[in-house]
């Protein structure tokens, strides 16, 4: 934009500020609620300024407990479960997708295109469609309430495979040929040339997949019945008691804030790489 028109500029900023407020307000409310006692939170009107119980509430949430009738599992444990699941899902997805894209792009084998289309078609099927049969398989394999049950069914990823395939197709053939002349075998080429070149794509994918793994709700809801295996997103739901009974809203909100921190951190720390991976075409 070369033009300088003050009124337009002000208007744009007003719209942006409104947008930020609309998005930030619920988060702010959650934060305020997490710093008061239960009694204060459920009182109408709810206080709009942070209270004095920040430390109590967060420690309480992390260690578990509370006076309500919902789940009292320790949020600290849930955070660990979530973190491990999200990491395994993100790293597993990246590893599997890289290898399958490598196979599809660089190797000639029978039914190569069939394999590619089989992977591609599963893009169109959301997890919910195959959730019944997947649950049956996981439960038959005794993987309920395990990390394997939480992560393995979510690892296969058509999207990531497709993304890496598209990236590999843009790598000039001469690089492969030069590597062959240099005596690099297929895995050597993969490790020394393709992986470093894919670094930014991998980073972008890691951000997306970590958040995807962290925010999983439906699947963990099915496969975890044991409190010690709840991811934090499920934990929030379980903490809310049904009906007329009392819920520790201050603890629920503290948990919600805690649950927001790791994905936010991942995005903030990897933002530079993330953007680079999405827009970079430098080869």
């Amino acid at each position: 934009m070369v033009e300088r028109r003050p009124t337009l500029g002000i208007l744009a900023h007003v719209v942006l500020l409104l947008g930020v407020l609309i998005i930030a307000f619920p988060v702010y409310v959650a934060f305020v609620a997490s710093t008061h006692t239960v009694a204060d939170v459920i009182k109408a009107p709810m206080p709009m300024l942070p209270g004095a119980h920040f430390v109590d509430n967060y420690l309480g949430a992390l260690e578990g407990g509370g006076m309500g009738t919902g789940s009292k599992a320790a949020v600290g444990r849930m955070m660990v479960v979530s973190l491990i699941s999200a990491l395994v899902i993100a790293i597993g997805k990246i590893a599997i997708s890289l290898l399958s894209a490598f196979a599809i792009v660089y190797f000639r084998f029978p039914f190569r295109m069939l394999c590619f289309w089989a992977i591609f078609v599963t893009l169109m099927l959301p997890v919910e469609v195959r959730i019944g049969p997947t649950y049956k398989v996981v439960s038959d394999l005794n993987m309920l309430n395990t990390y394997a049950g939480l992560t393995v069914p979510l690892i296969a990823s058509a999207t990531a495979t497709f993304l890496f395939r598209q990236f590999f197709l843009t790598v000039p053939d001469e690089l492969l040929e030069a590597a062959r002349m240099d005596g690099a075998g297929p895995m050597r080429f993969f490790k020394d040339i393709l992986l470093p070149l894919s670094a930014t794509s991998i980073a972008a994918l890691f951000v997306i997949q970590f958040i995807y793994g962290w925010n999983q709700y439906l699947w963990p809801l099915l496969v975890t019945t044991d409190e010690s295996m709840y991811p934090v997103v499920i934990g929030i739901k379980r903490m809310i008691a049904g009906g007329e009974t009392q819920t520790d809203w201050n603890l629920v909100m503290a948990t919600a804030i805690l649950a927001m921190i790791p994905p936010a951190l991942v995005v903030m720390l990897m933002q530079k790489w993330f953007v680079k991976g999405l827009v970079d075409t430098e080869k």
Partner: protein
Amino acid sequence: MGAIAIRNVVKRYGRGPSALQVIHGVSAEIADGEFIVIVGPSGCGKSTLLRMVAGLEEISDGEISVGGRVVNDVEPADRDIAMVFQNYALYPHMSVYQNMAYGLKIAKVPKAEIEARVQKAAKILELSPLLQRTPRQLSGGQRQRVAMGRAIVRQPQAFLFDEPLSNLDAKLRAQTRLEIRKLHQELGVTSLFVTHDQVEAMTLGQRLIVMNAGRIEQIGTPEDVYGRPATTFVAGFIGSPPMNLLAGQADGSRFTVGGVTLQLPSAAPRAGALTLGVRPEHAAIHRDGGWPLRVDMLEMLGAERLLYGHLGDAAFVLRIDGTLVPPKAGETINLHLPREHLHWYDSGTGQRVA
């Protein structure tokens, strides 16, 4: 040592009767230390031939040997050759040093030896101050030199160049051409250089292989190829402007072309349909010359001048000294053709008759 032999090599894509054959039985012997240029128009199969020598394309039929060893089924890395690619194919994430050292590292050459070889190559190519840069931070000419450095450090029996100069601008191309020649004089390694540029071919090659449509038209020194083109294709491809090719009927020392019958300085090798080739610089304006040329257009190139005209209906280009007073467009001048500069080709096959 580094001799390359190509024997009846065929390349076809696909199998069975629908297979597309692009190289039709090509043979050539390249002596150790020789600099050979394969030249031809695009699509003539020259790059495919080079890639078959490199091992990047399978050989459908025939055999290729490097240093006396048949390499048809040998992996590219084990053929003891190095290749410089058209777009250089440098590893973008590695430094210049790593790019050059990569092949040696894989070959498990000791670290000290790698260091020594890379430093030596960098010194020859004047890359020493750039070793820590990545390819992105280099200019086109520097990248080209890194690509050559990567080939040199391997100390192979032969270098293969796949149009390595075509991505450079004209000035740099001329300069790099000289550098490649100097390098060849220093290292004396057998080199196979593919290009479509006849200037590169003439200036670099000790011998040229002229290819067209998957066949070798002529193998010879630049003087041979220019002075005695083996076919009408070579006559028309090498030289700028190319040789005048006049398809007509010969009968003794008379030659009918474009509706006029002309007197030859010496008898045609045989009677019948023949094509007469004359280089633009070999005909001369002469008062008593028996070939009337109607001048249509003139081009001043500085040192020389090109005259475009017609002999009867047949087009003819003449090159004269730029300092001569030229005829005017529309005038008819008389040409003299020295007998030693007449090239005769069979009009049907295009093969040289005399």
